[in-house]
């Protein structure tokens, strides 16, 4: 039994099921991170003093550049499929994955720097919200890497049997990845700069 519109678009809505599904998922993620940003606002306005200079701005900026670049390579990975170039697609997807990994490695250095000084989330409300926001974001990066890994690995078989569906799935992965980048675009100035 097949479900209609898994690949083909429904004429009156112009959507395939997965496209609407991923956007709705992203909408819920906006509210999830929104709660944490709201937490940041309340904690910061309620604090007598808010720390500055505890985070490495340059490392944060480097990570921002890395993530933005990975967004570019991700959209290129999808665009290559639309142009029927599977080889290029795999290259771009791999580069995206590697950039994500470097991002996480940088975060590891940042985290261990703090923990090494005995400053975990318990140390202040600033560090509490910093670790929570970047930690949740980091988990999302990891999730994205798992999905990309799947499409680099066993999931790539779908390109042979149903190239349109495979292209759609890469598009949806891309939408998720751009969202993760988007969250960081707000996280970086809010936590590191303000």
């Amino acid at each position, binding site marked *: 039994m097949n479900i209609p519109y898994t690949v083909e*678009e429904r004429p009156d*809505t*112009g*959507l395939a099921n997965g*496209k*609407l599904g991923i*956007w*709705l998922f992203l*909408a819920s993620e*906006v*509210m999830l991170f*929104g*709660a944490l*940003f*709201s937490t940041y*606002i*309340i904690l910061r*306005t*309620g604090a*007598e003093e808010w720390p500055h200079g505890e985070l490495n*701005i340059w490392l944060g*900026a480097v990570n*921002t*550049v890395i993530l*933005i*670049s990975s*967004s*570019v390579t*991700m*959209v*290129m990975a*999808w*665009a290559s499929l*639309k*142009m029927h170039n599977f080889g290029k697609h795999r290259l771009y997807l791999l580069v995206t994955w590697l950039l994500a990994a470097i991002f996480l490695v940088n975060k590891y250095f940042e985290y261990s720097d703090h923990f090494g000084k005995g400053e975990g989330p318990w140390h202040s409300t600033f560090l509490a919200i910093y670790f929570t926001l970047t930690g949740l974001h980091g988990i999302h990066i990891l999730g994205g890497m798992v999905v990309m890994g799947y499409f680099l690995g066993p999931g790539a078989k779908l390109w042979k049997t149903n190239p349109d569906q495979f292209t759609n799935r890469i598009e949806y992965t*891309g*939408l998720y990845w*751009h*969202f993760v*980048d*988007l969250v960081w*675009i*707000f996280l*970086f*100035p*809010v936590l590191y*700069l*303000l």
Partner: protein
Amino acid sequence: MHSAPNIKKYLMIGAALLVFTAITVAANQLHFAVPLAITVALVIAITKGSMVASVFMHLSDERKWIYGSLLLTVVFFIVLMSVPIFTVMDTIGTPIHHAATAEHTGR
């Protein structure tokens, strides 16, 4: 159901994002007063975010249902950002100042 992918556009937007990142970091070096700093940071972040959303995520030629769901979400997001803090700021009587509690925690 997109028009053919516009590679040049993606690369240009990518470059623009990197430029804005540099601007954000540079602006931070200028040490504005807090309200101005927040405004500048948010304006730049929203600009960058809109570019990612409209170009990389194809939101600018997306369907009604997607736009509609997102618009609804944005409205509630704004509510979640603003209303709790308005509520916390709007209190009955005189709030007990934090200075008294600072003694206990030794901060």
